[in-house]
Each structure stands twice: as C-alpha cells, then as structure tokens.
C-alpha cells in the first residue's frame, strides 16, 4: 500500500514548483522579446496591452488552440490502442469515421441520434426542475421569518458537498435491498425499484441525483435576485388590485430576468457537460444512461478508438455550437461583449 512519505512530498513539490517557475520564467522571456520587438523596433501604441496579454495568449494557444487543431487531425486517422504509433491519416479515413458516427453504434449498441436525444432530454428535465425547485424554495425563503439562515444553510448542502462523493453516495442508496430509497418506498407500501438494472429507472436515478445536486445553485441565485426587487413595485400593484399571481407574472419574473438568464445559460452548459452523474450512477454499464459526454469518454477510453472518438467529438461539438449560435441570435446574449 502506498503511503504519504517525505520522498513523495519532495518529488511532488519539485514537479509542481518547477512547473510554476517554468511558467514564470517563460512569461518573463516573452515579455522581454515583446518589449524589444513591439516597443523598440515597431514603436507600437499597443505595446503594453499586448505585453500584458502575451502570457495568457501563448498559454491558451498551446493549451486550447493546439489541441483543437490536433483533434481535427485525429478525426482523419484510424488511431486506436492497436494503431497508436503507426496509424493512417487520410481523407477517406475521415469520411469513414464520420459515416461510422452516424450509421453504426458509437458504443456497443447505442447509436448517435438516440444518445443526442437523451442528452437533450437530460438537459431539459434537469434545468427545468432546477429552476422550478430553486424558484419555489427562493420564494418560500424570501420573507422575514425565524430560522431563515439555518434553512438556507441546510438547503445549500447538496451544492457544498464534493460532487463525486454525493454521486457515489446516491449510487449506493439506489441499491435494491439496502439503499434508503427502496427502504423508504417499501415502508410506504410501494414496490421497490430496480434502479441499477432497469434502463428507464437508471436514467431516472441519474436525473434524481442531478436535480438534488443542482437546485441549491438556482435557489441562491434566484433568492439574490428576489432581494434586489424593490418593495415599492408590489405596494403599487397592491393598490391597483393585482392578484398575487399577476404580481409574480408582471413584476417578479421580468425583474428576475437579468439574474435568471445567465444562470440558465450556465445551468444548461453544466448539465449538458455533466460527466460525474451519468457516468458514476450507471452501474451495470448500461448504455441507456449515457449522454454525449460519457459516450465520448467511453468510446475513447473504454473502447480505445481515438480517431473515431475525435470525429465523434467534432460532430457533438457542432451540434452544441449550432445550439449556441441560435441561442445567441435569439437572445442577443453577446451584445455587451464589444463595449
């Protein structure tokens, strides 16, 4: 059994410290070169901002741009565990990979479009419940009352726990015989549910876990938004004889918009990309709980088909990108960026 020894500490500190020092030195060298070229040679007006930006820009080019380019290249190869060093790179292989994504199973049985559909369903179900649950709790909490701080703290628990722990704990609790979910169902006189083996219930288990995990975030964001709405609006509406529902529709919802829109965007991105919940809840390697992200992971690292996975990832990204473009067109979410 491995243990934490002095040797391990020294080795890790050496590696990590070396990396941070290397980053700093590299940034410094970059600054000197930029200063000489832009400032002394070209006498650019923008020397200083470019110098400020350079370390991050170079870092992002190496860490993000280069891997994206490499992924495009990989999509045209047949690289796999067997063909790791000697693989073929050709247009025909790229077309073959693409054809495979759309016509053959991306895992053992699951095909691309069912997985895409499940991902959309997964995202929609989760975000809707997150917003509804968060909104309900925020409305309940948004009033002077005893124990408000305590309620708020307890309700934030699911968000505060490290996600991996929460998901693994839930996974255990979906056990047929000993998990508390089935124990409680039985005490209520209901039939226990096959959470692991039944495809539909397995997906439901993942949704339940993720809804439990995601409500606190929405609750806190919405509560913050509610508190910033001035009381005067409601008093005015009261005088005009508006009902509670009318007040909610025409005051609360519109005033929450600026808070809610970015929270929903974040929620959609997080849920769409959630890996831990569907991957860890999925117990019997059922392919019926896989969403795009977990299917990608398994195609790449369980079936070790790197070239194919790269093509798969590109197709998935194009769908996400199309969604983002439509969303931005419709809502004008990027308007503020240029200012």
């Amino acid at each position, binding site marked *: 059994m491995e243990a934490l020894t002095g040797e391990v500490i020294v080795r890790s500190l050496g590696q990590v410290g070396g990396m941070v020092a290397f980053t700093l030195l590299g940034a410094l060298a970059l600054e000197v070169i930029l200063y000489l070229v832009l400032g002394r040679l070209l006498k650019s007006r923008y020397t200083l901002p470019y110098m400020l*930006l350079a370390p991050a820009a170079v870092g992002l080019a190496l860490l*993000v741009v280069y891997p994206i380019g490499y992924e495009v290249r990989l999509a045209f190869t047949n690289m796999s565990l067997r063909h790791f060093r000697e693989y073929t790179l050709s247009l025909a292989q790229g077309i073959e990979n693409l054809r495979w994504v759309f016509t053959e199973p991306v895992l053992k049985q699951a095909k691309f479009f069912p997985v895409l559909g499940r991902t959309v369903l997964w995202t929609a179900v989760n975000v809707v419940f997150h917003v509804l649950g968060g909104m309900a709790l925020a409305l309940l909490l948004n009033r002077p009352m005893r124990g408000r701080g305590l309620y708020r703290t307890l309700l934030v628990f699911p968000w505060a726990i490290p996600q991996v722990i929460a998901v693994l704990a839930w996974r255990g609790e979906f056990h047929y015989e000993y998990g508390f979910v089935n124990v409680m169902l039985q005490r209520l006189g209901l039939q226990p549910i096959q959470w692991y083996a039944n495809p539909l219930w397995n997906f439901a288990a993942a949704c339940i876990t993720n809804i439990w995990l995601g409500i606190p975030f929405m609750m806190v964001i919405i509560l913050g938004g509610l508190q910033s709405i001035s009381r005067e609006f409601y008093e005015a509406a009261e005088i005009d004889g508006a009902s509670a529902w009318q007040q909610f529709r025409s005051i609360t919802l519109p005033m929450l918009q600026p808070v809610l829109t970015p929270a929903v965007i974040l929620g959609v*991105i997080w849920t769409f990309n959630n890996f831990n919940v569907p991957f860890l809840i999925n117990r019997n390697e059922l392919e019926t709980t896989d969403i795009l992200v977990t299917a990608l992971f398994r195609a790449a690292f369980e079936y070790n088909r790197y070239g194919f996975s790269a093509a798969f990832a590109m197709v998935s990204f194009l769908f996400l990108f199309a969604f983002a473009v439509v969303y931005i067109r419709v809502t004008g979410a990027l308007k503020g960026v240029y200012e």
Partner: protein
Amino acid sequence: MSTLVKTQRRKAPLSRFFRSARGDSPFKRLLIHLALILSCAISVYPVLRVLSVSLRPGDRLLSTSLAIIPDDATLKAYHTVVFDKPLLLWLWNSLSITVSTAIIGVILAATGAYAFSRWRFPGRAPGLIFLLTTQMIPAAMLMVPIYILAARLNLINSYRGLAIAYSVSSVPFSIWILKGYYDTIPPDLEEAALIDGASRMGTFYRIILPLSTPALAIVFLFNFMTAWNDYMLARIMLQKAEMFTWTLGIWTLAGQFRVEWGNFAAASILVMIPVMALFLYSSKWLISGLTLGAVKG
C-alpha cells in the same frame, strides 16, 4: 380560528404566496415552515446517511435500518482510512495539483484581463469571443487530444500533466471573471495617479491589484474548487495508484470491484468537512463573482 383562516384564504386564493409575508396568517406560516423543513430533510438526509454508514461496525454495513446514529457506533472505519488506506497520499496529490493550477490561472489571468479591460487594441473583440467560446467547449470534447498529446509528451501519471490540463479551462474562465471585475473599477483612479507621475504598470500594481483582492481570491478559490472536485480528467491522466487524487481514490473504495462501504463513508466525511466549511464560508463571494462576470459581459 379556522373560519378566519378560511375567509382570508378565500379572499385572495394564492394570497401573497409569491411575496414577502409580514401579514401571513399563522396557518400559512406553519405551511411554509413545514415545506422548508421537508426540503431541508431531503437536502440533508443523504449526507446524514453517509455519516451513519461511516459509524457502523464492519459486520453491519448493509442494513435496512434508517437510524442516523447506529446503536453500536464505532470510529473504526476512520482509523482504517487514515492509517491503513492511502487517504493522506490522495489528499496530498490533489492539493499539490490544484494549488499549482489555481496559481497559474491567477498569474496568467490577472494581467491579461487588465489589457482586455482598459485598452481597445486590434484583436480585442475576437479575443473576448474566443474566451467565451472556450467556456462552451466541454472539457470532454478535448479529452482525446489532451490525453494523446500528454502521452506523447510523457505527462501521463505526473502532477505537471494534470495541472496543465486543468489550466485549459481555468485560464479563460479567470480572465473572463477578472475582466468583469476590473470594468467596475472607475478609470478615474488610475488617471489621477498617472497625472501624479505614476507609470501605467505602477497604477496596475498599486491601484488595480490591491482593489481586486476579492476578485483574485474568488478566481483562485473557484479554480481550486473545480480542479479539486474533478474526476474525469484525473481518471484519464492518472493510471498509477500512487498518483491518484482523492476523487479517484474514493472511487476505488466505493465503486470499483469490492465495495468498502464503511471506508468510503469515513473517507468521504473526512474530505467533505473542510470543503463544505470553506464553501459555506465563501459561498456569498463565490456567487457574486460568478454572476458578476456573467451579467456584466
């Protein structure tokens, strides 16, 4: 009493349910408290279950009892995970990787965000859109190239490799949040200092950085939390047991072949307490920081 409640409710069916409630009837207040207590029970109960399992003696791990504190509670599992399992090693591995990622994120982002916030230079708008787009690219989309490049560069099973992989998402995110924060600092402060003879870099170090301490702390904390809780990238990049981070380690206890339920629960409680304390303490700033970057644009 009950007729009074009824007439009040009839007058306005959903009366004030959607607003503050100074004038709430006692019955409605009771309902609200009941709803909140039920919600709290749902949110806390799974955590209490973990605590309960961690206290059970080894021969009674599987049980249909719903009691929180078992009758024959014992701390044996805690002793096992600290002394017989490499929990401390896992935590140390996680700590060294996440802290270095967070440091790199803050260093690269602090200056870059300043350029985006204060200058209109060629390439600014595409740069900002690029930053936003990288937020939309899920880490999962890039895991294949990251894994293969890391394998080629011999970075698999190293602290370095994972710290670099985490920086992929932490750097753009940090720039985005910090730019949003710098934008809220009025430029008059720097102009005044410039008139008094300070250099542009001087204003950055003397004015902007000290004023941004809260935002820098948020960014550091956020990157730290994201990397600390990550499972997927760690699973790809670390294959040797001695390099495991705590998420991988806990997975070997709870998920892999033999489920060591009690040990998993005890390790979870030990990992959870400091993280939860840090989170509950800092959640106010974390949230304001998140929405700041998102709303301000």
